[in-house]
């Protein structure tokens, strides 16, 4: 399998996908407030 980092578009698409995943992580962390900033 080709390394997506070898192409600039592969890098950008991977970055956008990671942004989507981390958005849901952030949403979960805010919703399940663990202490600071109720």
């Amino acid at each position: 399998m080709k390394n997506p980092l070898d192409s600039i578009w592969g890098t950008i698409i991977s970055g956008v996908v990671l942004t989507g995943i981390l958005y849901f992580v952030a949403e979960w962390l805010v919703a399940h407030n663990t202490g600071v900033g109720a």
Partner: protein
Amino acid sequence: MSVWQEPLIRWVHILAGVMWIGLLYYFNFVNVAAVKEATAAGEAAPISKYIMPRALLFFRWAAVVTWLFGAWLLSTVTVNGTNGFVGAFLLRGALAPIGIGAWLGTIMLINVWGPIWRNQQKILGFVPATDAEKAKARRIAFLASRVNTLLSIPMLFFMATGPHALFVEQIFH
């Protein structure tokens, strides 16, 4: 705290960040393809001699200034009695989105001074290396730089949206 303190810290954080990420994008969007073409034409030497050392100097110190002023900016905030810097890095509640951005920026800073700079020193001849070591260093530095380009996309998303409506709306609903 003076009303000027927070805006001035944010201003320097953004100025240095523009220089850091601007040079990162120059390396990845312009320089990689330019060096490839120049090498094929036998004309890559001036890029390595005159451009890369200067670009890398501003690149790695801009990364340090960006991180330090970002850390200072976070520490000016207190949320429910907890320092913003500590809360962000612990990914706590309202500070979690900006904390994710801060973690990504920190990984990127380590990447700049670790894999990228250490291998660029071999490529540019600042430290002695054989041709095989240089070829390996070139590949590692390239991949490390691409990883930072990848990480810059979510990092800038969380820097831009973390303290704003996208997440704050959720907190107050």
